[in-house]
């Protein structure tokens, strides 16, 4: 198991954003994390990578307990993530952004080697021709790819993707989905992806985990989850989404 989440809960004041979330993630899998808005998906990522310290429970990464570690310590251990709301280093070039990932991530390369890695990664995600542009000048789709590139440049064992498809047009979505699949297939990186674009996440994930009001309500293969009455009910507020779920 590359990641074990055991009874993790997180409280913000009176709000129980997560309660008793438990799952194991074997190496090499793509786990889809879905749930309505405000279900606690991003909070779960934050508890795993150290942005928040969980109120209860434990997180075990590659056999070692890491509950409440600092975010940089998690990065050094081989965990990388993207942000739902992109956080480009605006005044730095795209290449510099990606180089930061390679310099300070798991392998901690020197500048020279980090630049080579950055070149390779930028080509991989399709940002090579933007290398010398300032990150702040990219459009949304490109910024999403930059988030991905920075995370990949760290050569992580586990990659947390938070809605990398949101705000992309259909052709960009197709491109991004193929990138996600190749990250696992070619680089052997384990992935958890939070996603609202159902057909994409159902398609690319080996397993799906469903959160609703901070609680896990279902877990299984995409088919199992799509036919789970609880899941359909959770999405009933959004009939269109339920329909899309069923049609998978």
């Amino acid at each position, binding site marked *: 198991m590359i990641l074990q989440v055991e009874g993790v809960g997180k409280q913000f004041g009176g709000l129980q954003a997560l309660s008793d979330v438990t799952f194991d993630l074997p190496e090499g899998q793509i786990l889809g994390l879905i749930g309505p808005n405000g279900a606690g998906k991003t909070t779960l990522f934050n508890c795993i990578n150290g942005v928040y310290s969980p109120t209860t429970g434990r997180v075990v990464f590659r056999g070692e307990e890491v509950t409440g570690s600092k975010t940089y310590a998690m990065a050094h251990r081989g965990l990388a*993530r993207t*942000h739902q709301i992109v956080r480009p280093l605006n005044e730095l070039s795209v290449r510099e952004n990606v180089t930061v*990932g390679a310099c300070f991530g798991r392998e901690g390369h*020197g500048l020279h080697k*980090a630049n080579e890695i950055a070149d390779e990664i930028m080509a991989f995600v399709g940002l090579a021709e933007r290398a010398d542009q300032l990150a702040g000048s990219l459009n949304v789709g490109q910024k999403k790819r930059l988030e991905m590139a920075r995370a990949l440049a760290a050569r992580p064992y586990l990659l947390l993707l938070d809605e990398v498809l949101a705000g992309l047009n259909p052709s960009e979505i197709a491109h991004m989905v193929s990138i996600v699949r190749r990250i696992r297939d070619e680089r052997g990186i384990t992935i958890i992806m939070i996603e609202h674009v159902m057909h994409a996440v159902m398609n690319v994930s080996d397993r799906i985990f469903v959160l609703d009001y901070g609680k896990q309500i279902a877990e299984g293969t995409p088919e199992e989850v799509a036919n789970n009455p609880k899941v359909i009910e959770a999405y009933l507020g959004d009939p269109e989404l339920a329909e899309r779920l069923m049609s998978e």
Partner: protein
Amino acid sequence: MSGWRKYTGLIVTLLIVLLLTFWPLITGKDITRETIFTILLSVALASSLNILLGYTGYVSFGHVVFFGLGGYVGFYLLSVQGWSLWIAMLAGGAASAILAFLLGKAILRLRGGYFALATIGVNEAMRAFINNFEPFGGPVGMTLNFQVYRDYGGPAQALWLSFYMLAALTIIVVIISYSVRMSKFGLGLLAIREDEDAAEVMGVIAPNVKTWAYVLSAIIPGILGVIFFFKNGNIEPAPAFRLHFSIEMIVMVMLGGQGTVLGPVLGGMGYQSLRGYLLTSPLFKNIQLAVAGALLLIIVLFVPAGVVGWLRQRFPALRRVLQ
């Protein structure tokens, strides 16, 4: 890019500093030397501050505390203990570095305006402490026995010596500033400046990196304090911890272009030339600080990137030359 062309940005900046240094040597006039002394001091202080302000994005309003503390420690060793200038300089730099290290652990956790406020508090607290610290002469300060200058070839020679030392330190600061800018450490600083949380998520150990940037930005001001007050012949709390000197340093960095190597050099030169003019103009003599404040406001509002930053945006072809 190969060979020296890779270092064009550094070479341009160093040439400017060297030009300034040789000017009084050519004219041989004391007045020119004094003018250039003030300018080089500003350039060196602004370049030091830039490591924290420009690269790391932390505004230190009380940076003069390192100049003052270094000056005091060095002056005490020189005048009371009778140590040599060289050791006094090292001690002044070390004292400032240690203070920055301790402060780094304590106040660099604060973000934005809170950090800036804390630095002002530190400077004021240090001034109050020194004011009551008898070994350093309390409110009266200390005065150098004229005999001390004899070891350095007499008072006139000591002035030239101070000038050479300052010039050498300015060159060292520029090289440090450039090396930091081009290094992995510097990249970590820039990442922190842009988004500290995101930088940490990518693995930058921000608390450590920030502390080292703070220490690096404090050492040279500490040494400069020793040279300045050695040349001055006496030291008192008020001129050593003059808050508005701190603000002027910020104006210089912002004017030239924060986060660039050349910016603080041009900013220091530009600001001191302007100030020299204001001091001699009867109209502006009394409001030079108000002018500095207004200037800061104008820069922040209209050219936040400063002269060098603006030129780099406007003329991308110049980027290799202006770093």
